């Protein structure tokens, strides 16, 4: 069985029958090769693949759908019997998503300002940042427009993109931990919400998304704060602490958990630690660069160093 065919087949096979179907095809291919030749076996294999693909894909989707349904049912029952434990991840995700949306709103605001300044439409940021997105106490409105500040603005913009993506990645990672821990026996005594399936996670996510929409106006207080991004980081750490690290640690320490969550929890904790240190470093760099005479070059150099893992991001910064 060639690699491309195997890869295509794996895409449409559900986990439960993956080995069995691939084994069946291997077995029949061996028979055809023995009875005819390898060329005939290849033709047979590709015909099988093309004819089987729609059936197998439909079966996979049906399995996923039924899993989602049972997860939703589990979520409903779990929330009813253990409401306090269900509120925790929902609250954590709500705060996380609200942070993401706030960051994106500010990012849009800064981009609008930077684009206007690029076109030479103002001398201060106050003149180019729309009033509805203004940041009253951050000092940004009174910052004089010059090439160094524009570079810093670009760097901050890039950082906010990164920040939002990393935050989302953190939340997704929490979901994966939750998913892999579903085999944990209940008698271990951990809250019900740790050991649920993807359906449960999806339900939590949808509910959190709804709550985020409803609660978004109350997050406007963030815009009134000095040191806005520090506040956002504090909130993000709260999200991490409540929603992510606690279950990760709990799963790591539990003897009843399968090896997957332990491995994922360890990777996750390393990721969290690295990201926290990286965040502090980036902010210290940006603060330092604000006062530096050679801001342009330093921002460029630092950004390349700090974001080198991000592929072409530095080229966006240096534009």
């Amino acid at each position, binding site marked *: *069985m060639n690699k491309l065919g195997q890869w295509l087949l794996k895409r449409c096979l559900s986990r439960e029958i993956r080995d069995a179907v691939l*084994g069946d095809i291997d077995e029949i291919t*061996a028979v055809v090769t023995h009875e005819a030749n390898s060329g005939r076996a290849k033709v047979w294999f590709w015909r*099988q693949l093309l004819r089987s693909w*729609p059936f197998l894909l439909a079966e996979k989707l049906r*399995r996923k759908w039924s899993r989602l349904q049972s997860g939703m049912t589990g979520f409903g029952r779990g929330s009813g019997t253990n409401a306090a434990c269900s509120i925790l991840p929902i609250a954590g995700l709500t705060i996380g998503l609200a942070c993401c949306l706030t960051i994106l709103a500010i990012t849009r605001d800064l981009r609008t300002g930077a684009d206007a300044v690029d076109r030479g439409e103002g001398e201060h940021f106050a003149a180019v940042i729309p009033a509805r997105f203004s940041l009253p106490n951050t000092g940004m409105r009174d910052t004089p427009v010059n090439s160094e500040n524009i570079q810093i603005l670009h760097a901050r913009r890039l950082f906010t993109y990164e920040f939002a993506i990393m935050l989302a990645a953190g939340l997704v990672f929490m979901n994966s931990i939750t998913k892999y821990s579903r085999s944990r026996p209940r008698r271990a005594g951990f809250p019900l919400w740790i050991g649920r399936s993807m359906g449960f996670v999806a339900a939590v996510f949808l509910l959190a998304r709804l709550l985020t929409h409803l609660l978004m106006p109350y997050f406007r207080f963030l815009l009134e704060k000095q040191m806005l991004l520090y506040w956002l980081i504090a909130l993000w750490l709260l999200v991490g602490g409540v929603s992510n690290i606690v279950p990760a640690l709990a799963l790591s320490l539990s003897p009843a958990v399968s090896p997957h969550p332990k491995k994922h929890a360890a990777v996750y904790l390393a990721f969290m630690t690295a990201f926290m240190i990286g965040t502090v470093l980036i902010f210290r760099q940006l603060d330092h660069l604000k006062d530096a005479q050679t801001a342009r070059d330093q921002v460029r150099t630092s950004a390349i160093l700090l974001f080198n893992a991000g592929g072409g991001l530095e080229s966006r910064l240096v534009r």
Partner: protein
Amino acid sequence: MLSRAEEIALLAVWQLQDSAYGVTIRTLVSEATGYDWSIGAVYAPLYRLERKGLVRMIPGEPTPERGGRSKIYYTLTPEGKKALLRIKRVHDVLWGEAKPLRVDET
């Protein structure tokens, strides 16, 4: 009600007894129907039967001729046997009261 493919798959599982897995089921139904069933076409009705609780999946041991991959054997549940009996009864009743069929008749 079961679809035609489900009926055939259910009957094949019963006929093959302990050796009912993907390859043998495919071979049997292909010979019986005269069509070349694809592997996907075999597993789709088996999945639906499993969802309905008519068959049960039993994982087998990995074998070298299958590249170290294990088989999944299928066996009928009590509900599956009842469903098969119901199908047989319906066929028997309908065929029993029907006139003998010849191809040349209109």
